């Protein structure tokens, strides 16, 4: 098993190029990363709105809001 293409350093470095593991699978990695990126935006948007709704439900009365402004 060799993931990097380098099994020994008995080589002329001038002939060595990429040495990261699983070369050839870059496109699959990119697709996974793109899905993760888009998913992250969607999920964190939802988290942010849920948190805002919760805040309004718990603290959205004039008493709390006045307290927040006065303590600032």
């Amino acid at each position, binding site marked *: 098993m060799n993931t990097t293409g380098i099994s020994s350093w008995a080589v002329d470095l001038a002939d060595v190029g990429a040495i990261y593991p699983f070369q050839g699978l870059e496109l699959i990695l990119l697709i996974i990363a793109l899905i993760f990126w888009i998913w992250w935006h969607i999920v964190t948007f939802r988290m942010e709105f849920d948190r805002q709704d919760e805040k309004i439900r718990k603290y959205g009365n004039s008493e709390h*809001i006045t307290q927040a402004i006065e303590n600032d």
Partner: protein
Amino acid sequence: MGNNLDALTTIFTEFYYWLTVALMFLIHVGFCMYEVGASRRRNHMHTLLKNSMLIPLVTITFFFFGWWIYWAFPNGPFITGGIEWEAANANSPVSDIMGTNLSDRITGVFWAAFLLFSWTAASIVSGSVIERINSGAFWILAVLIGSGAWIIDAAWGWHYQGWMVQLLGYHDAYASGVIHAVAGGFALGVLVVLGPRLGKFAADGKPRDILPHNPWLVCIGLFLIYTGFWGFYVACNVPLISPEGIGGNITGETWTATTIYLTPTTLGAITFNFLMSLSGGMMMGYFVSRGNAFWTYSGGLAGIITASAGNDLYHPIQAMIIGGVGTYLAYKLHYWVENKFKIDDAVGAVAVHGYAGFIGLVICGFVLWGHPSSPYEGYAAINPLGNFIGAIIMFGVLGFLPGYIASKILHAFGLLRIPKEVELMGLDFGTALEEEAAAREVREAEIAMVNGK
């Protein structure tokens, strides 16, 4: 690396860009300090996280497509040629030089230097929209400016083959336009749609001062941006190249540092001019604001930004005067726009970056009129009209318009602005109360232990 001289040049260049990246990190630290200092106590943590999270988001998207755009679009495309597929594919996220590769030591550090510019572009927008934008909406805008708009303008006007350089003689050595004007214009486009913070304007339209909660933090943040700006400046240069390596009109065998356009300059020149334009800006900022600390420090930045387009060539006293003029105009424009159009730019980013950058490009076109924009044959020389058109493209076409349109879309879906109640109570309010309650519970438990219960 064929011989020892090649090896030395390559390793020096690799280390040079790496060092600029480490220095430029301080720009972001400075922006975060500055924004948190400018925000009110009830918004601190959200303000910090909103800006900080652009780091990973712009980084990954710049890896996914931003870097590819730079190499693909110097011709427009279809203005001076088609898409540069060969160069673009070599720099795509699936290329083998975009990873550990012993035959290419420069791409990683060069990519990172550009990436740090991308963070700066997005961070400039971040400060102006504090305390009322949804973080999720800002992060989409950050990707748009950081991995989209700015890097298209870099391909057009900050690439040795860019069509703006070839046809317009556009010259912008240290990014007055390609970073600052575009980000300032983008911020203005967002602000027009986003609207002012609640309470910013009185019923009669008169603006109120929403003071920074911590002016000290704001000023130290700006100081740190100055520090990081050194890295920004040197990252805009090619540190060492031979005439053969340039391959243009230059004769002889004298190696040199060059701008991004491969036109000769020196680190000494940009050190003179950085410091003199900073000084002109700070002195004018102090004068025009009557000793206001925020505008004095911002004036230093505006001074550098105004002179940046031509700081590869200016005389240091020219850089000082240009820095002072840009700061004066940016300050005056900030308050004129605020009063006239009710624009609430919380940190003056549109003025310091957008207006100063625009003005700097226009001045550069006059002061460097006739100087070759490139070492290659057939390129237009630097001229006032070319740089003026370039300023409009940077601030208006690639800055304001994308910011405005994207914000309109986010607004149409109800994603752009936080609810009124949350804005009034502050973004941190509920979390702060819960943290306070948790801390109280621990204290009570500890006291109970002391009392032996």
